[in-house]
């Protein structure tokens, strides 16, 4: 089959690789009909995710049709149309039982690596380095889905791929980011990063009762999308000081909740941002927490900080004094996608949201390397790329 393989920083290629096969009893094989490039794939593309190996198949936002099932699968059949959560979860451990699916105890075959780095291993992820399991990803014609009996959700007729594809990651991720804000009536929520996850965080914050949502970015078309499609107020941090603007917009109080939808490769304008770019470039720092610092300083006293952007390692100069002395509540983590699949599918079916509004580019899988290039460089107003195998 054809698959998008990582061969090093800024080097991804569509290679011909063997077809996946059933390995374990709870596996299924999916023929992929749609698969997207995620902002977090860019961290891999840029070479900032450790334990990648040349030849690894990328991609963790994919859906398709079941073509083969393992001997222990009784709830899926050939031909079922399914979406696949990007987190791989067993469904039977302490964490899965408590809806903490991204913390699954059992899915990571390389748990020892994660234990060395993090103390304990989170769930494995598709196509996201050997630290997170080394599972082949879904930017391919076919993928093997472990624990498919709990991981694959059937899609009812009448919904297009574009409408449901983002249930695999970015819609639940934005939704969980908003949920982690513990929004109360009258709350103002600020969202750093108006990429696809930021867009869904804005929409979700409104769904969960926010009075006002403010989006912060520097890319005009992303700010425009936040304003026009998601009803956000917007701040371009290259034009104004985001911290000051937020204070003015919130009567001096600061936002009740702040969402970091940026993560480890933040851009910024201040000296701290330059410091991080240099340190990260020479590998003295794993992550560039520019957005996170702003979030902490901007949040109102007693407010919530919700982190949806990915962090991987060790961060410098986090204003812990501000966090402590303002009594902030932090919530974060990889998304417990399985928990959100059905409730969010219902919101799509009810017509509350059509997630396809973030899509700016549809490309055949063959052109995936071009997709990475324009997504990374934000060329051609690129916000979200959907790839079509066989397209």
């Amino acid at each position, binding site marked *: *089959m054809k*698959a998008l*393989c990582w*061969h090093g920083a800024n080097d991804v*290629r569509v*290679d011909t*690789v*063997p*077809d*996946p*096969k059933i*390995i*374990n*009893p*709870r596996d299924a094989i999916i023929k992929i009909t749609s698969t997207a490039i995620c902002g977090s794939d860019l961290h891999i593309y840029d070479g900032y995710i450790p334990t990648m*190996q*040349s*030849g*690894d*198949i990328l991609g963790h936002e994919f859906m398709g049709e079941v073509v083969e099932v393992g001997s*222990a699968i009784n709830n899926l059949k050939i031909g079922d149309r399914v979406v696949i959560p990007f987190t*791989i979860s*067993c*469904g*039977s*451990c*302490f964490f899965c*039982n408590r809806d903490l699916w991204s913390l699954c*105890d*059992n*899915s*990571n*075959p390389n*748990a*020892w690596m994660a234990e060395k780095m993090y103390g304990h291993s989170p769930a*494995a992820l598709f196509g996201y380095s050997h630290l997170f*399991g*080394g*599972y*082949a990803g879904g930017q*391919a014609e076919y993928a*093997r889905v*472990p*624990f498919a009996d709990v991981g694959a959700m059937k899609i009812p007729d009448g919904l297009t791929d574009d409408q449901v594809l983002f249930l695999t990651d970015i819609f639940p991720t934005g939704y969980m980011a908003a949920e982690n804000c513990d929004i109360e009536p009258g709350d103002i929520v600020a969202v750093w990063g108006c990429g696809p996850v930021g867009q869904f965080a804005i929409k979700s914050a409104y769904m969960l009762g926010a009075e006002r949502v403010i989006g912060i970015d520097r890319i005009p078309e992303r700010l425009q999308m936040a304003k026009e499609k998601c009803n956000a107020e917007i701040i371009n941090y290259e034009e104004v000081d985001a911290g000051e603007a937020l204070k003015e917009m919130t009567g001096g109080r600061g936002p009740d909740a702040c969402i970091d939808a940026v993560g480890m490769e933040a851009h910024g304008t201040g000296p701290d941002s330059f410091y991080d770019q240099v340190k990260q470039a020479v590998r003295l720092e794993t992550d560039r927490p520019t957005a996170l610092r702003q979030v902490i300083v901007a949040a109102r006293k007693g407010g919530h900080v919700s982190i949806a952007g990915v962090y991987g390692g060790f961060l410098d100069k986090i204003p812990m004094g501000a966090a402590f002395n303002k009594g902030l509540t932090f919530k974060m983590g990889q998304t417990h996608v399985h928990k959100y699949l059905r409730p969010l599918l219902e919101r799509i079916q009810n017509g509350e949201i059509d997630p396809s509004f973030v899509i700016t580019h549809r490309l055949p899988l063959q052109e995936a390397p071009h997709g990475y290039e324009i997504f990374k460089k934000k060329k051609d107003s690129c916000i979200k790329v959907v790839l079509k195998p066989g397209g």
Partner: protein
Amino acid sequence: MESSDITNPQDQQSQSGSSNLSDTERWGSLIGGGALVLMGLRQGSLRGALTAIAGGGLIYHGATAQSSIQEKVGMNQSIKVEKTVTINKSPEELYRFWHNFENLPTFMKHLKYVRVINQTRSHWIANAPMGSSVEWDADIVNDQENKLIAWTSVEGADVDNSGFVRFTPTASGRGTEVKVVIEYNPPGGAVGSAIAKLFGEEPEQQAGDDLRRFKQLMETGEIPTTEGQPSGRK
């Protein structure tokens, strides 16, 4: 691994009088349910403790005497490992699966094959360096239903070893804490050191990985793997 596990026989002899009792107590507490860890247990083999406890605690002195003879003839590369994991299953289910030693190779990577001979005795074959293997017979020396299984190799083993597994339900219904303690005493000489290397290379991680596979198998019915999946590696 504690550096003190590899001790000079002279040191051991000079200390044996004073530390025997406390070590027996500590081993007893470990096997009996205490939270004690191996750290600092300079003295006394697991085999000795297991035999002592099986026999009521009185023959422990004899067991240590035997182990110090082994040490004198160069059999002093004792490797002790202790690991604990919490499994979301009842002690009954876990005990039942483990008690059939023929199941052990499904999650203990270095084991090739185990055959149960009778109620207490089993024959074990483990992978050794350069495609060879080592074999031994083991006896269950302590068997407490749904709580504990302890075993030791019998005379003539290629690798003298012993171990126990303990199943303790957690207070709040969060499953069962499974503790495994294993000790190997590889023979001296070149073969011995090759075997010591096999069992001794990051033994904590090896035991931890075995125990994790046990957990995965019991909780999910399979052992997650990526072996055999496609990649773009030539």
